[in-house]
């Protein structure tokens, strides 16, 4: 028996437009439907254009995952050309991408996720005063420091990518801007500045020590910095049990370089790792306001249902691999890469705690990666090579955005884009139901979330939704 139906929105501190429909029974969510209420039609805009235009248009799908879109487009074009970036070009592209992903994680933690714990509903909790001081929206000292650290880290993007967001610096054959020896040392200096912020504010201890955490129990005892504050309140509120995932994780592998990706690709299912089978991807449109049949993205179309039929409820298609929904993001990436903390967080439920702690872990690991990437820049090397575009061809670009697996499927005919299909991370995570009625990962994770009497925008629902760090503008593209 449903006690109440709630429509939650506007849902802010997520990127883009999100509306969540909840059926509430006995003080808990019995069923959820996730609506992405925006249609723009980027895949349609690309049809008929010069293939190179994808590098200008696709970053503008999203102002927060802009470089991820850029990287995926470059890989898809490169695949169609049979062109790889030079080793040093790949290195600089990886560094550019890592800066964006790190900034996104930071923005999520300080500006999007944590302010909810400064709400009056938690005023009786022992940690509330400290959280309010650090994380109150637009005011908290932690949020302010993070904003400054983020802007300064992005000086690396000013230098290597011209600006952020929306750069054209990442190309199929490498990058447009060769760093000089003096710029290489400046980049390393920027990274040392960011490390100072991490070790003073976020971790309160050496980055390496956080990377060395090997279990959820060990993480819960961390005790330093803003990470420690989060872990303390997570224990108090039992965020480990909130919003548990399905335990099936996807990663396309992050930061491809000459000697392989920095974080491994894979599909994690039933506690076992195997290679993702991208041929088994199907985008189901049964509950999306899209016409046409469910299809693999290489054959997919984007035909909006102008009538917005009643049996559908989102502009988001429902991607499935082998018929099953998958969760992606920092937790998925770190589980698949085999980090012991991430594996343990997933084994213990993969809920709100796990998603957020894995993001913190990834900030720490990516700091080490960025330092290594910058260290290895060789200003004497080539950073770009070129090849002609084929008149006809196809290519796939698979990358990892901050929020997870991002794929571009491109087909070129007669020198122009014939088809361009995109599956973004939050398309996976916030997909609607498929034809079998199987809910998307967020829809499933919301079931059981507590709803207190009188709550119309349930706080637990907000924590769960934001723990995924959704990017809705990418979702619908």
């Amino acid at each position: 028996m449903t006690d109440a139906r709630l429509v939650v929105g506007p849902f802010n501190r997520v990127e883009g437009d999100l509306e969540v429909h909840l059926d509430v029974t006995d003080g808990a969510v019995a069923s959820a439907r996730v609506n992405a209420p925006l249609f723009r039609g980027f895949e349609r805009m690309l049809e008929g254009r010069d293939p190179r235009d994808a590098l200008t248009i696709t970053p503008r799908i999203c102002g927060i995952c802009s470089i991820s879109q850029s990287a995926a487009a470059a890989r898809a074009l490169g695949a169609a050309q049979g062109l790889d970036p030079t080793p040093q070009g790949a290195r600089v592209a990886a560094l550019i991408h890592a800066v964006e992903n790190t900034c996104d994680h930071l923005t999520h933690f300080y500006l999007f996720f944590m302010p909810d714990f400064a709400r009056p509903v938690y005023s009786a909790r022992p940690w509330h005063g400290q959280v309010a001081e650090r994380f109150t929206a637009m005011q908290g000292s932690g949020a302010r420091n993070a904003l400054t650290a983020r802007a300064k880290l992005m000086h690396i993007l000013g230098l290597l990518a011209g600006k952020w967001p929306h750069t054209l610096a990442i190309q199929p054959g490498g990058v447009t801007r060769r760093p000089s020896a003096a710029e290489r040392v400046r980049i390393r200096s920027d990274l040392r500045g960011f490390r100072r912020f991490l070790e003073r504010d976020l971790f309160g201890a050496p980055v390496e020590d956080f990377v060395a955490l090997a279990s959820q129990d060990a993480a819960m005892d961390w005790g330093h910095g803003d990470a420690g504050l989060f872990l303390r309140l997570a224990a108090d509120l039992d965020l480990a049990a909130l919003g548990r995932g399905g335990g099936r994780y996807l990663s396309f592998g992050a930061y491809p370089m000459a000697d392989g990706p920095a974080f491994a690709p894979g599909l994690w299912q039933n506690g076992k790792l195997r290679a993702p089978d991208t041929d088994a991807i199907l985008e189901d449109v049964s509950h999306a306001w899209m016409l046409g049949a469910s299809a693999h993205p290489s054959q997919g179309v984007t035909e909006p249902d102008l009538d917005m039929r009643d049996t559908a409820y989102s502009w988001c298609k429902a991607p499935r691999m082998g018929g099953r929904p998958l969760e992606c993001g920092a937790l998925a990436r770190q589980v698949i890469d085999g980090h012991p903390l991430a594996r343990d967080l997933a084994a213990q439920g993969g809920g709100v705690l796990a998603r957020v702690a894995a993001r913190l872990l990834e900030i720490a690991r990516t700091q080490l990666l960025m330092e290594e990437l910058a260290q290895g820049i060789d200003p004497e090397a080539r950073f770009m090579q070129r090849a002609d575009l084929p008149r006809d061809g196809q290519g796939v670009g698979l990358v990892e955005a901050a929020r997870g697996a991002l794929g571009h499927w491109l087909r070129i005919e007669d020198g122009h884009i014939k088809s361009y299909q995109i599956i973004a991370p939050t398309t996976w995570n916030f997909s609607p139901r498929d034809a079998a009625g199987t809910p998307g990962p967020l829809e499933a994770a919301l079931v059981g979330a507590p709803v207190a009497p009188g709550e119309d925008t349930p706080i637990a629902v907000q924590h769960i939704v934001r723990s995924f760090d959704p990017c809705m503008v990418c979702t619908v593209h």
Partner: protein
Amino acid sequence: MNLLWLQASGCGGCTMSLLCAEDPDVFDSLQDAGITVLWHPAFSLESGTEVRATLERIERGEIPLDLFCVEGAIARGPRGTGRFQMLSGTGRSMMDWVTALAPHARHVVAVGSCAAYGGVTTAGDNPSDAAGLQYEGAHDGGVLPADFRDKSGLPVINVAGCPTHPGWVLETLMLLADGALGADDLDSYARPRFYADHLVHHGCSKNEFYEYKASATELSEMGCMMEHLGCVGTQTVGDCNIRPWNGAGSCTSGGYPCINCTAPEFENPRHAFTQTPKVAGIPVGLPTDMPKAWFMALASLSKAATPPRLAENATSDRLDVPPTVRKPRS
């Protein structure tokens, strides 16, 4: 002053860019200007019913709306309903909200080229039938009519750019809070002249290459990108090479062309963004205010006079040949 910010049909990148403001950061800048944020979708606390209550009170005139910032184009489809973007939780389209709230505003600010003119959201055949607030591309009149004026008598202020520079947005808001931005301070597309009276060419690090028409032939080369690589910095408004991005950056210093992102209809240039269209081998498009005959004459003269240093460096990815160092006259 009260500020309300809505994200319409766009990428959110202008907000992300705004968060890159430095010394002071965005929150200090707004606070120092006496601007109170009623609600912003990316960084305010309020969600759901709390936000709906604020929007409804503004609409009823119970909360004064001084600065109404809209980021993103306004979707009008399907079939004129605006339902391609519903403001979640409200059962109303963003088009409906924007047209309902704009008349209450002392100033309406279109943040970014999408909100101003439609921008990338209207690329290709404009699948969502989107438009800017007061322009549809370069044409007067968007979801607000061409004769719309805010309570102070100004049209929608178009802080165009893709994305916008944080300084453009903050200075516009600070000028408005100060009562110091009038109709004469806007250009013919209603862009604030403090940045729109400049060209991207001004201060471009490739200027010496431009002077001698020493051109890059491929992306990543040092030379001027006007002749072959689609750069329209000599025709595009913006102080991008005077006021750096993210520390010290700009598109051209990043090694890729200016694509005219502060202008209406930049999203459909009718050629590949990174390739200069040519007629009989001669690039189409003249530097702003340059008579064609003189440009042709000067270009051929300067090309003939190109120093070997520039010719060589133009097609290299690094400065192979340094400038000659002169000794002081003794």
